[in-house]
């Protein structure tokens, strides 16, 4: 279908070229189109194209990751999601196709076997579809995985851009500050305060102080460590923003737990030392 169109456009554009050059140009374009189609088929981009309908197809590749990052736009996810995201075996996809929702004809390139399937009877579709369901599901799954990996890279890039002003030394300084604060507090509590109240009360007060003063400290660079987990969460259609926030919360909880361990350890060691010296008993 496309070669004549391409031919006409190219002939309009390059009227000044000689016939052989024009032919060469047409051949080159044809090859490029074919490779693009093949790549799209491999990446599974054609599947979501049908759902987007009249949306700009050219800008799709640029637009897609931004949509996923916005938490308030759940419809930004390709609507083929439920059919592929959960089961790569495509059992859902088959059911969706049978219900009469957008058929998979636009999922593949024009002239491919799926176009013929669209016009065939439903019973015939299921019979022919069964052997092809596996590879299609796998393709969709792979395309989603690729999408997730791109999103992850983008997330990491954004985080790095945000924290470009700060470096790892400052993070270490803040962590060191937290740890030293916990140690000093444990010593003070053991010597002066602990006879009056629980040892955890001053610790949580200190954590509140840290939370309050956190914004005044330079933000450290936090890389995504759990890459497989992140990819898995992205694949299961959880918004990237939510994952990012959850991971931030998780890391903060980890910091608090570390502080608590250091605090408790210092307290117990100090207590044992005081008992050993014999100055004070429990």
């Amino acid at each position: 279908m496309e070669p004549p169109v391409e031919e006409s456009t190219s002939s309009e554009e390059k009227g000044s070229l000689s016939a052989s050059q024009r032919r060469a140009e047409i051949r080159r374009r044809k090859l490029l189109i074919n490779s693009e189609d093949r790549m799209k088929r491999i990446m599974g981009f054609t599947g979501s194209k049908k759902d987007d309908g009249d949306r700009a197809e050219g800008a799709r590749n640029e637009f897609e990751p931004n949509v996923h990052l916005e938490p308030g736009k759940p419809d930004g996810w390709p609507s083929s999601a439920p059919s592929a995201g959960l089961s790569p075996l495509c059992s859902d996809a088959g059911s969706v196709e049978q219900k009469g929702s957008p058929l998979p004809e636009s999922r593949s390139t024009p002239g491919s076997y799926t176009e013929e399937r669209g016009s065939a009877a439903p019973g015939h579709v299921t019979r022919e579809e069964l052997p092809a369901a596996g590879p299609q599901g796998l393709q969709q799954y792979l395309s989603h995985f690729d999408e997730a990996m791109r999103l992850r890279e983008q997330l990491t890039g954004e985080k790095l851009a945000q924290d470009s002003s700060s470096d790892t030394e400052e993070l270490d300084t803040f962590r060191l500050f937290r740890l030293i604060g916990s140690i000093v507090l444990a010593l003070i509590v053991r010597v002066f305060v602990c006879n009056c109240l629980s040892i955890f009360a001053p610790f949580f007060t200190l954590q509140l102080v840290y939370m309050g003063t956190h914004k005044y400290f330079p933000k450290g660079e936090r890389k995504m460590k759990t890459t497989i987990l992140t990819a898995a969460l992205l694949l299961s259609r959880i918004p990237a923003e939510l994952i990012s926030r959850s991971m931030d919360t998780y890391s903060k909880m980890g910091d608090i737990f570390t502080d608590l361990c250091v605090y408790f350890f210092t307290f117990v060691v100090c207590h044992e030392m005081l008992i050993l010296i014999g100055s004070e008993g429990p």
Partner: protein
Amino acid sequence: MAAGYAWFLVLGSVLLCNLVKTLLPSISSFLSKVFQKDAEHETEMRMEIQGMKQELSSISMMDEFARYARLERKINKMTDRLKTHVKSRTAQQAKIKWVVNIMYYVLQAALMISLIWKYYADPVTVLPSKWIAPLERLVAFPSGVAGGVGITTWLVVCNKVVAIVLQAVG
């Protein structure tokens, strides 16, 4: 007396485990050196190949083709032997590394299980219960002694602190 130092015993064990873990690569390489005594033979082969290559460069290919070809074949043969040797040595080294790692993890698990077994009912140290007031049951787990610090809590705390210290040192 011994019960009074239980906290220190646990701390020492955790520290020892972590130190050994950092030394695992060195231990593996030492053991591979001990078990692989034919490293000298490999060096000899390398030297021999180098010598033959030097000799080959001094021979004119056109004038003494037969000698040149013979020497070249010899070099190729020796190189193949060296490659096979290096391959087997690398495989053996990986095997030793794997065995050392497995042994370490088995010993660590045995040590931790024995510590937990020993201090299951007794706390490693005892504090006044009001000091750790809202979390005393959690801290005392699994001993159940009011105000006691249980072995699991203490193991977790020690592991975390030792990891931080080693990270800072390393």
